[in-house]
């Protein structure tokens, strides 16, 4: 079993962990002091060298993203993605509630690196406690001189403001988040231009997931080499795995990338409930395809999961035991996506509806083979033609359910 001393979650179980004093007592904001003595380019170089990839689902190299921000643009923004809507994912919530300064320090360092003087925190509306904690953390950071004008006498200014979402999964998608931040209907934007070229109010914007930002102070504090020494070839550093479903100890587990799935389930999360066997695992949140029990030895890293026919996504591991009804799983996941489709593009808005319609019929036992055939055609027809990844992602669970557990679907129809 991998022994790993948590870094990202080091503070979360301390008493009063959310307080700035607690954070400071454990070395908080030291990395910021160090950063402010470096040049922004040095900070970007360090993050590039670390090999850090985004933890919000897409796994884009963070240093490279910062490098895209035009140096000469007069106004730049940072946006912190705390919308955390991917089913099965609950890591960002833990950090905002328990250790908001860990994110905030990353926010300040990232803003310094890209030259942003304004950062927007976009937080999921249902995170009531998280909102409170963020507000308090921001206020305290101003008090302590970590925010505002001339931070720690460095001459660097940064203001941070908070924006609550109104309950839309799509607003976690970076361009929809930007639309929502601007007060508009939450729908993704046409890309290009990418946020790094034209984001909030048309200005270059870096959008970063919470967990990604929590890594930053550690990369600066301990050095890129330390970070790069953890994990696999293409997946460096520690990662928080959100384990849920039919395990004995569901929860957030911080482990190096590359830790085998089997170890996460059986050693860390206490194994499957009632000693049952695993039937299927969603390894990275609802938009990633299922893995079957024979794939449990896969290392949890970007490249290895891709090779296994799935994806790391957000690192949300949903374990399903042998009693699970896979048709029902597909139906429930589908109904989530249909509910969350923004309605902009035809295949997702209407195609998704049709898929759910077929699934409802099949799950009710009234289905015919034709329903199954139509469902299958839809899972082939929709991916790749939607405006944004949501519509494509919604087909994954059904498509992989049909592929891996076909007999369960066939048994339901006549």
């Amino acid at each position: 079993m991998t022994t790993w001393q948590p870094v990202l979650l080091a503070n979360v179980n301390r008493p009063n962990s959310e307080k700035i004093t607690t954070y400071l007592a454990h070395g908080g904001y030291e990395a910021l002091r160090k950063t402010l003595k470096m040049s922004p380019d040095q900070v970007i170089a360090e993050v590039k060298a670390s090999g850090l990839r985004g933890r919000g689902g897409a796994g884009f190299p963070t240093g490279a993203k910062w490098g895209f921000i035009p140096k000469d643009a007069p106004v730049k923004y940072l946006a912190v993605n705390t919308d955390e809507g991917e089913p099965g994912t609950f890591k960002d919530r833990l950090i905002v509630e328990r250790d908001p300064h860990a994110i905030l320090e990353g926010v300040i360092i990232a803003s310094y690196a890209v030259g942003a003087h304004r950062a927007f925190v976009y937080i999921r509306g249902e995170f009531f406690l998280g909102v409170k904690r963020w507000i308090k953390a921001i206020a305290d950071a101003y008090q302590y001189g970590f925010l505002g004008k001339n931070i720690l006498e460095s001459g660097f200014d940064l203001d941070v403001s908070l924006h609550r979402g109104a309950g839309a999964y799509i607003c976690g998608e970076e361009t929809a988040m930007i639309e929502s931040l601007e007060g508009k209907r939450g729908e993704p934007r046409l890309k290009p231009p990418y946020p790094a070229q034209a984001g909030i109010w048309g200005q270059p914007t870096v959008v970063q997931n919470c967990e990604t930002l929590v890594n930053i102070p550690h990369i600066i504090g301990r050095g890129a080499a330390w970070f790069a020494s953890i994990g696999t070839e293409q997946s460096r550093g520690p990662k928080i795995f959100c384990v849920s479903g039919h395990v004995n100890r569901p929860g957030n587990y911080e482990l190096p990338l590359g830790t085998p799935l089997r170890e996460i389930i059986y050693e860390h999360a206490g194994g499957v409930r009632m000693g049952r066997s695993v039937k299927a695992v969603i390894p990275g949140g609802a938009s990633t395809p299922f893995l079957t029990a024979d794939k449990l030895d896969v290392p949890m890293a970007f490249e290895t999961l891709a090779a296994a026919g799935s994806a790391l996504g957000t690192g949300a591991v949903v374990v399903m035991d042998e009693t699970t009804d896979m048709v029902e799983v597909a139906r429930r996941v589908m109904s989530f996506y249909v509910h969350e489709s923004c309605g902009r593009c035809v295949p997702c808005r209407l195609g998704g509806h049709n898929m759910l319609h077929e699934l409802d019929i099949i799950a009710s036992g009234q289905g015919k083979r034709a329903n199954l055939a139509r469902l299958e055609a839809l899972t082939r027809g929709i991916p790749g033609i939607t405006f944004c990844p949501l519509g494509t992602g919604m087909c994954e669970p059904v498509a992989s359910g049909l592929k891996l557990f076909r007999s369960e679907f066939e048994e339901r129809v006549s």
Partner: protein
Amino acid sequence: MPDLVTLTVDDVKVTVPAGTLVVDAAKAAGIEIPIFCSHPKLDPLGACRMCLVEFVGPRGSKLDTACTVRVSEGMTVRTSTEQVKAVREANLGFILINHPLDCPICDKGGECPLQDQTMAYGAGVSQFVEAKRQKQKHYPISDLILLDQERCILCWRCIRYLDEWEDKPQIGLFERGGETVIDTFPGQPVDAATSGNIIDICPVGALTNRVSRFRFRPWELKKTPSVCTLCPVGCNLRLDERVHELRRIVARENLAVNDEWLCDKGRFLHQYVDHPERLRTPLVRDAAGEALRPATWDEALHRVIEKLGDIADTNGANALGGIASARVSNEAAYLFQKFFRALVGANNIDFADGSAVKAQPTGLSAIADIAKSDLIVLVGFDPSEAAPVLDLHIKRAARRAGAKLLVINPRRIALAKYPGAYLPVLPGGEAWDLNGLATALQAARAANQAGSKPAPAPTGKAKLETKVAVMAELRPAYDLLAAAKAPLFIYGPDAARGQLGKLAVTALSNLAVALGFGDRLAYVGAEANSQGARDMGLLSDTLPGHQPVTDAAVRERLGKLWGVQPPAEPGQSYAAMAAGGVKALYVMGANPAATVAGAEALHKLDFLVVQDLFLTETAQLADVVLPATSFAEADGTYTNLERRVQRGPQGIKPAGESQADWAILAALAEKWLASQTVDTGEVSKAIEQPDWKKKRRKIKAGPAPKPWNYPTAQAVLDEIGKAVPPYASLRWDALGEAGVQWSTSALVRAPRRVEPVDVAPIAAAPAGSFTLVSGPLLWDNGPLMPYGAEQVRKLTPTPFVALNPADLTMAALAEGRQVTVTSAYGNVTLTLKADASVQPGTAWVPANLAGAPAETLGAVRGEPVSVAVKLV
């Protein structure tokens, strides 16, 4: 010249400007990519996914939307692979499953992109057995438009149009995912002045036209390309006729004029053409006090020439005059002035805002120049009310091209909200401010040119004006003007009438000249063919081709064409004629009796002929009424505000026995000539001898008029080409369907000189009274409005006077009350309104409301009028 990019679409190589969207590049290659949400005049959206095509790259091919991807060098696109076909089928399937398919009762059926694409790209079989989802069906989103949410495919075209062009985002998306619908916002119906365009661009029948709903099936219509004659923009449109009724008007693309937009007046105000109250036969009044009775054309025309001839014989030619409207075609305007100049022998011809207004002869250099201007100066001109499609272009320039607007107007018109400056003026006070600005700019320029040498100190009046110019209130305007690199100056009749108007125009022209842009100064008239009417010489002091009647060479040239020369003496103006300067008046399309005072003046005439569509107040007083056709029922050309001469061909059979204006004039002239005993050597066409011709007039010896021989409107246009030099090449065929701008090279003398202006500031109305401000309203009670469809008529407000809210409070008056408004010229009873766009101390009464209140109060006299407002 933009960079060019070459790409391959389905093995066809095509070269297009960089930045072109793939969907347009494919079109250039002759390949149609199906679209729903994409529209050439709207920003890309990428919502419907219908246009997905394969892009072949080094790492295999990938699908992307042709409506959002821009071309790049060497790009390879495949538009009809199996994959692409499957995608189209799937997308259509998704849409159709959720579409009501009520095509048999849908107005769009037959011209519906969804139908067409289903036939072209659909699966061909229906897979759907379940019940359709239900949404709100056909409910009004405005007086003019119905929405059917079930039919809507959420392409956002309507949303984007209202946002991107109108800057009135009045339709939005509600709910989410499959529940998403479009709708208006609570309590705010769509009221954009060009809202009807969303009906044209809706790719399904979700938005329908309340005026023409259920009155046509597209395939039954006879479609005639024509132009709108309701304002000087001259938008291109199509007349859709069925069984001799004008069922519908839709926009027609002309990228130089209206893109593919129309304003709501142009689109929805057409039922007057088929209105039961149209005049269908000539009417004559046998004796004063008797009623008008139907007559034959022969009798009516005979009556006209007999009476006109008698009055001319006894009182001289100067006792005859003609007032026309500038709505009529070039052909009608030309023959009208020719009738008076060549046959009657008087220059007594004019139209409202004709000789009373000092107009730049050349109009706008081009509508396209609006988008290229960095400053648009609007003096006494409110495009939002007077020319809504021009308003679209100006808003677009302000929002997309960063143009600034300098609005000089007694009222804070809608366009004043855009970046730039608003300069409030009192009516008639424009000259003072413009002169101040011009003087200050000239001084600054002189100082610049003098280089290090100190500029000559302004003396006397100039000194005063320089001081005025830098006064705080002129400063923002001055700064805008001084910084402008490509300004455009547009003024309208409201700033240009009368003596004060002449000063204002001179000052404005000085201003343009001082900046070095004398050629970027344009006058835009109120009526649709104002430009054409001026080109045709429908003016008491100006001959065809913008030459003064005093110009002997031009008179001689016209004399050769007409057989007789026009008189050298300038004729009487509209105001002079309407106030009793003539004994016999011929009114074509105008309505001077709309005011009580105007009607009283007409009572004194010996003889009144009115040629019109309806029995107007003026026609009711006439001795002979001649029924004329509307623009839709006769061929004719019209010249828009950028000098574009456009064809308006006949699209529908004339009502009753009505005849084209030009044809009536031609017939009248034939009779006139036939009744004269002059040996012309030539013979007029209609020389058979009915009874009435037995009575012949002797006329003075001298050169005889040439016969009038116009079998068609085109023949009249041919002669116009000889009379008006810039029209020389503009034959009917040469005009084509997009029209041609006449060249200014033959004529123009853009002002180059600064002319001194002697002007004094206008005094505000005395305490307790207000300065009357008037101007156009889109939905007024203009000549055709009362005969529009009910939905259209509803848009005209009950006659009102609006005051600034502060004035209302101060005078302890309440909105909604009835008030009497009194001026030196008359009094009217109006409903009181509060309106923050009305400046303090002024009272706003729009032109052409029912009962002509503004006109009654003296608003169009070109001089400041003060009014008192009292509770009834």
